[in-house]
């Protein structure tokens, strides 16, 4: 009875606040935009050089000059502005984005993140992921709890890192973990998906974590 991808996205949307500027990665994070609460205004940033990203265009209205960081055709909003990639990453690196929601291959209990390469496989590149984790104030990871039955929440990442001590919150299909990345207080399980047991989470998690009181 773990959360679906859409339920994970809905849980991630709870991290949004009115007036936030947010960068969403590809995959489940993209779905978060479907769950922005009514009455809340959130501006989406696309790191190739756009703030105020609108939905996909209607068929026939695609504009090759108007794409997001996933190279998908998107649209403008009344709030939209365009800028160079240097200005875009100045915005990211300078800490102006409130929240980044992204996928991951592995997260360690100290907030280390690996999501860009698997040694031995074709390396595609890190794109903007290293800049986002290093620059954005709050980083939320949304991912499946395990990959092929193996834990992705680890004592220490085994894959090459995207960043060290960068993840604040991990949302998986089984639950939600907070990470005290700055203070070194480690990882805490703060929510459990409906119908999931603490034992089930313990079995699927390699990283050490505390369990919040009340769970």
């Amino acid at each position: 009875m773990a959360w679906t991808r859409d339920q994970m996205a809905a849980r991630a949307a709870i991290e949004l606040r009115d007036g936030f500027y947010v960068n969403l990665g590809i995959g489940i994070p993209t779905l978060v935009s479907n769950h922005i609460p009514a009455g809340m205004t959130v501006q989406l940033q696309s790191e190739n050089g756009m703030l105020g990203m609108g939905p996909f265009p209607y068929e026939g209205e695609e504009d090759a000059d108007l794409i997001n960081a996933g190279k998908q055709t998107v649209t403008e909003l009344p709030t939209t502005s365009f800028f160079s990639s240097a200005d875009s990453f100045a915005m990211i690196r300078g800490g102006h984005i409130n929240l980044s929601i992204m996928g991951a291959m592995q997260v360690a209990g100290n907030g280390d993140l690996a999501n860009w390469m698997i040694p031995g496989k074709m390396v595609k590149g890190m794109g903007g992921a290293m800049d986002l984790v290093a620059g954005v104030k709050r980083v939320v990871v949304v991912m499946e709890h395990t990959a092929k039955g193996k834990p992705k929440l680890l004592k220490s990442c085994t894959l090459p890192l995207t960043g060290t001590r960068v993840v604040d919150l991990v949302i998986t299909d089984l639950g939600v973990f907070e990470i005290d990345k700055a203070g070194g207080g480690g990882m805490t399980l703060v929510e459990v998906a409906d119908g999931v047991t603490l034992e089930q989470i313990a079995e699927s998690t390699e990283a050490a974590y505390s369990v919040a009181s009340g769970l």
Partner: protein
Amino acid sequence: MTNKVYPDASAALDGLLNDSMTLMSGGFGLCGIPEALIAAVASSGVKNLTVISNNAGVDGIGLGVMLETRQIHKMVSSYVGENKLFAKQFLDGDIVVEFTPQGTLAERIRAGGAGIPAFFTRTGVGTTVAEGKEVREFDGAQYVMERGLVADVAIVHAWKGDTEGNLIYRKTARNFNPMMATAAKVTVAEVEELVEPGELDPDQIMTPGIFVDRIIHYPDASKHIEQRTTRPREA
């Protein structure tokens, strides 16, 4: 008055291309790529290029054209994932890739054009990107030193340009083009609309003409879409 306008891409690149040179090529994915100029570099036969470009095109489009002709020795890029031929040449060891985080790449190019030989960034600290580079603490946080990038020639795509070389980009086709225009010994631009000086609003010029040495009118840009995503119309 010196004339910056050339009749076509091959003419605009004449005398600029040499084996083993470093080339910057604008664009993100297939968006805002200097297609005509890439084709002219490909047909020139110049070899052993180091190409600085965020991506490597897709098979047969963009820098993919230069992969078919095996002209590229090394790429400096942040993401090269959408290209089978690239993957093959990379795995075969025919192409070397210097992976650079996208924001670091953008800033390194800006720095190169701005006379800044090095700067510090948090991006990549504690990762393979920082290996062999100086890491230093400022105000309690760790930063890695990255170097400015310059090229022999930059090729860029703009929406509008005037004969003075002033350029305006359109929407997300801006991306890496403005920085690259500043960071090469010679910059060549292709523009969809070429106008006379005075027709562009001087407040709106994104690349001042000082950065553009040669320019061509290229009204027939193909404008490829990699991921054609749409939504249904409401009934």
